[in-house]
């Protein structure tokens, strides 16, 4: 497993699905582990009843069916399926509505879904997902991207409430790919994924949604900046290492 995971974290991000399939055929005995530990770009299904799309992930799956956060029904229909309690479902409904507005504000389009379920420690776990197609044929407002995909997965464990406080543990994963195609720079593509964790103990006075929402917003922002400045920046540095810009080359001539 270690070798498999080590390989996967080095594979070109755009080939992670192929790499995962290959590993599943090579080490089928680890397939459930691999599937549960590797993130792939999110898939979407349409909930015809409510007329809205919802995102598929391990957290709303049971067998081969997926539960829609809008209608709370499994598609395709499934007997004896797992559902959150009615109280948690109320929170889940609210979370989906609020998160849709948050998504709109930051993503100007895209799809979001939130799933919640009780965990063994009398707390609960919530999964907030966003999928955005930022290409010019999708929801890209400025039309600069030939291709643009952003997938965000935020899994947040909420501990039981104790003396008005709760412990929150957020693990956020961002997967993205973008590509431009123009006269001067040709086909320019950047893709990648990054994952970070954030833990906080917060007062529950304003409600769980408020706390979770703020943490997600903060970590998402940090990851966006990190990808942009640090990660893409490193690739930019590498290009300049391979072939320094003309001004720098000229300065070198006296040595040679």
């Amino acid at each position, binding site marked *: 497993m270690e070798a498999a995971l080590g390989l996967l974290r080095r594979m070109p991000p755009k080939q992670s699905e192929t790499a995962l399939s290959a590993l599943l055929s090579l080490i089928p005995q680890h397939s459930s582990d691999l599937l*549960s530990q590797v993130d792939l770009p999110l898939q979407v299904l349409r909930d015809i009843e409510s007329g809205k799309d919802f995102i598929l992930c391990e957290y709303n799956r049971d067998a081969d069916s997926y539960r829609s956060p809008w209608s709370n029904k499994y598609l395709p229909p499934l007997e004896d399926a797992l559902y959150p309690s009615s109280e948690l479902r109320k929170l889940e409904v609210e979370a989906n509505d609020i998160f849709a507005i948050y998504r709109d504000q930051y993503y100007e389009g895209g799809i979001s879904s939130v799933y919640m379920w009780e965990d063994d420690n009398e707390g609960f776990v919530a999964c907030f997902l966003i999928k955005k197609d930022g290409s010019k044929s999708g929801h890209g407002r400025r039309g600069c991207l030939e291709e643009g995909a952003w997938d965000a997965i935020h899994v947040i464990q909420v501990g039981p409430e104790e003396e008005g406080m709760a412990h929150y543990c957020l693990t956020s994963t961002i997967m993205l790919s973008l590509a431009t195609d123009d006269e001067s720079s040709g086909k320019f593509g950047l893709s990648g994924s990054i994952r970070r964790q954030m833990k906080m103990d917060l007062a529950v006075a304003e409600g769980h949604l408020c706390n979770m929402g703020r943490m997600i917003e903060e970590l998402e922002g940090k990851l966006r900046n990190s990808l942009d400045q640090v990660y893409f920046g490193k690739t*930019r540095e590498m290009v300049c290492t391979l072939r320094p810009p003309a001004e720098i080359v000229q300065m070198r001539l006296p040595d040679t």
Partner: protein
Amino acid sequence: RRRITGGDGTKLRPEERNRKVVSPQRSRWRNQLRCQRFKGAVLSDEEVYNEAAMEAFPVYNKSHMICLEMPSRAGDVIVSSYSEIAENEYIDPRTAQVAIVDHVKQICTKVRPANDEELPSLYIEEYRNALDAEIQRYVSESYPKGISAVNCVKGKDTEGPGSDFEFVVIITAMRLSPQNFCNGSWRSVWNIDFQDESQVLDIKGKLQVGAHYFEEGNVELDAKKDFQDSTIFQSADDCAIAIANIIRHHETEYLAALEVAYSKLPDNTFKDLRRKLPVTRTLFPWQNTLQFSLTREVEKELGLGK
């Protein structure tokens, strides 16, 4: 870099998936991903590995145009489809040697002199050699660790004027720093088509730049561009200078364009994926979301909004 290319992309069978909902303990696993050396192999069967490697390595080596050091300080040979004589033999036109190569180990095991059938005619060699020298000069000026070669891929037996012939100029630079979690490569392939009848050189270029950074994350740049240009058919020396100038011009411009593409990222390109802040320029008012919902209801009722 060892990459295993196995598998055929088969889809998952339903019985491979769990029936019960996966618990959030998976996030604990994820955080244990650290950079460590592989302690065990994914594949324990040597024979299968060797078979796959024998197939995968030549493809990788040729498409990445890896450079292998030839014995006795003869320089580097570029492994590419343009210099391939046989599956494990690659010609270095500059030293008129053929390198025998072990693809899987990525080393040149020995060299032999190229025989007459493998080398171009004197007439062609005059043009090839002149161009090779000019390109070498350009590459040493512009690439800290660049390696180049000029191969004749068509018409190498042409004895004099009256026929067409074609060269391929390869420029490759690689920077491998796995200990810093960063690798990169620059590959230029320029096709120079010497057209006798029109007395024109038709030039087509393909540039490909890649960079991979994978420290606590995994990000890759994949950039490519095609070029087209031409110049007149002159003496060997004059052609060499003209071609090298054209290549230098396009590559320098391309590098500048890449810089521009990078500088547009934070405030333009990236914005189409996710804004830094909402249009309101403030963080999302989580505590006031009831107010927000109300606004949306009103918007919907009045048929406003997007």
